[in-house]
């Protein structure tokens, strides 16, 4: 068991270094720090001096190490646009993204699980079929389109909710939150739904499929044969067995919420790190791009690791080495 954990950790560390390496390569070779800092009119001597000062002539592995060391200390260099330290930019905008992501994730998980269970139990019911058909639309609709359509309906036509921005925020130390104001909460609704809808449909379909699969199993049949009521069969037996694989996939999906936040933030002009990233791509602001990729990449690796370890903890068969985890 310990061996499995260590191997898994090792894998994660390897991928982390890979992510850092790619991030570093982008930073060093796609970016043009000299031109950006000095402009076009610099003399050759000035350029050489700067190159030396920035350590751009040092051997590659030294530069890489330097990059990583600085990254760990949250020094990502300065943005090409406005020369602000990238780290400060990220810190300022991170709370916005995280609040949005967490609220969306909760929405997706709770509603998705409930609907998934319902459509599995009431398999052939009218409402269940309707929900399943609508879910197909949820999966085919691009996230940005959902956002735009929601804006049109609720902000433009009905005027109930704001169409951009975060509303008023309250500063708690270094964290600015929009959860404590009415305008903040109102501004959160549409973006949270937009961001969470795709995940919700995915989770719902997954829960339904898993539940149906579990309900087909012999031990459910035996439970019924023992006279246990339908309610007990569903909630006491089927549910726990269903949620085990669902947790893994749901966890992985939550990681992608952070990535998809880029889209939602753009639609709603939500001042988070996603919007920051897309602007960086558009304006070819390399330090920002590289830093964002490093952070998000690390996030994904960590999430994957946690989910894998969680799976190990939950299923007693794996704990005792009886079963090899089904890879999805």
């Amino acid at each position, binding site marked *: 068991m310990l061996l499995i954990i260590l191997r898994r950790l090792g894998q994660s560390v390897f*991928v982390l270094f890979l992510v850092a390496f790619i991030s570093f390569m982008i930073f060093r070779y796609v970016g043009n720090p000299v031109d950006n800092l000095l402009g076009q009119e610099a003399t050759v001597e000035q350029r050489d001096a700067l190159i030396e000062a920035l350590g751009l002539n040092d051997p590659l592995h030294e530069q890489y190490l330097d990059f990583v060391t600085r990254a760990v200390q949250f020094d990502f260099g300065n943005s090409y646009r406005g020369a602000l330290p990238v780290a400060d930019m990220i810190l300022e905008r991170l709370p916005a993204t995280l609040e949005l992501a967490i609220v969306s994730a909760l929405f997706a998980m709770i509603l998705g699980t409930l609907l998934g269970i319902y459509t599995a139990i009431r398999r052939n019911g009218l409402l269940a079929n309707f929900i399943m058909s609508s879910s197909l639309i949820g999966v085919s609709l691009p996230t940005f*389109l959902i956002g735009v359509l929601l804006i049109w309906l609720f902000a433009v036509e009905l005027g109930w909710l704001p169409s951009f921005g975060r509303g008023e925020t309250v500063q708690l130390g270094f964290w600015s939150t929009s959860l404590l104001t009415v305008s903040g909460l109102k501004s959160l609704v549409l973006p949270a739904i937009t961001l969470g809808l795709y995940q919700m449909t995915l989770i719902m379909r997954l829960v339904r499929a898993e539940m149906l699969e579990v309900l087909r199993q012999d031990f459910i049949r035996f439970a019924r044969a023992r006279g246990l009521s339908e309610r007990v069969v569903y909630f006491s037996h089927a549910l726990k067995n269903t949620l085990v694989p669902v947790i893994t996939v749901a966890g992985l999906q939550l990681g992608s919420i952070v990535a998809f936040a880029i889209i939602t933030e753009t639609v709603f002009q939500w001042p988070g790190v996603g919007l920051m990233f897309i602007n960086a791509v558009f304006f070819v602001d390399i330090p920002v791009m590289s830093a964002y990729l490093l952070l998000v990449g690390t996030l994904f690796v960590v999430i994957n690791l946690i989910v894998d370890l969680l799976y190990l903890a939950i299923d007693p068969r794996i704990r005792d080495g009886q079963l090899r985890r089904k890879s999805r």
Partner: protein
Amino acid sequence: MISEKRFLRRFQESDFLHDFKRSPVTIVSFAVVVVLFLLAVFAEFVAPTNPFDVGSLNLMNGFTPPMQPNAFTGEVFPLGADDQGRDLLSAIIFGLRVSLFVGLTAVILAMVLGVSLGLLAGYRGGWVDSLIMRAADIQVTFPSILIAMLIFGVARGLLPPSMRNELAISVLIISIGLSEWVPFARTVRGTTLVEKEKEYVQAARLIGLSSGQIMLRHILPNVLSPVLVIATITLALAIIAEATLSFLGVGAPPTEPSLGTLIRIGQDFLFSGEWWILFFPAATLLALSLSVNLLGDWLRDILNPRLK
């Protein structure tokens, strides 16, 4: 050799056509996809105007609502005109072409890359296999749209500013294509591993056929069915990816807009009441995306005997 007449009869009597005909939803999806596809291919002939000919645009036509004659010029636009006086119907048809072109090409790229790597990994085994599969595992840890954005951003950074708009479409295709190769590779590798042990492969080896020939002519045909299923799924994903990237401003440029770009433009005019600039491109994208998804779902159900 099966004569064509017999093949046609077998097709007509097959389960394939039987299931297709019984599902009205599938027929409609198929029809929609075909219509949209034809519109895109024959854009020049179908569209009333050429929206990119700057000279033909009349700014006075700007903001004309659908089916109403313009106050100044008296021209009528079936789906309205945008802020520049462009006929929206034409813009949508050409935008459809860009969307479909990018989507299809990206899928083909992903398929060629994925299938080749899959065949290689499965057939050669050893370190080649490990390398390719490890790379696949790592890539799959991250969402493909992020990878597409990464590739696009890097490519953009490497190009001089003047070329960025020109090559945007090509870069877009490469970004999306490179982000979607993994499912192809994994499936093909699996099938290759199985087929590799079969007798006809051993026989081919004995005759002296090279690995390349064996992979291409013998193993590949057996792999086509699952590859087709994955291709339809990937097409739907590619279309959405392209629309998303274009909407975000890091895809098809306004000079050669796709449906996503048009929607981005349309969003700006929502509050001022010119709803049609958003609505029609959005509706077209929705129709396209939904139909491709439904068709893909149906194809998957048909081709996957296990689920029957």
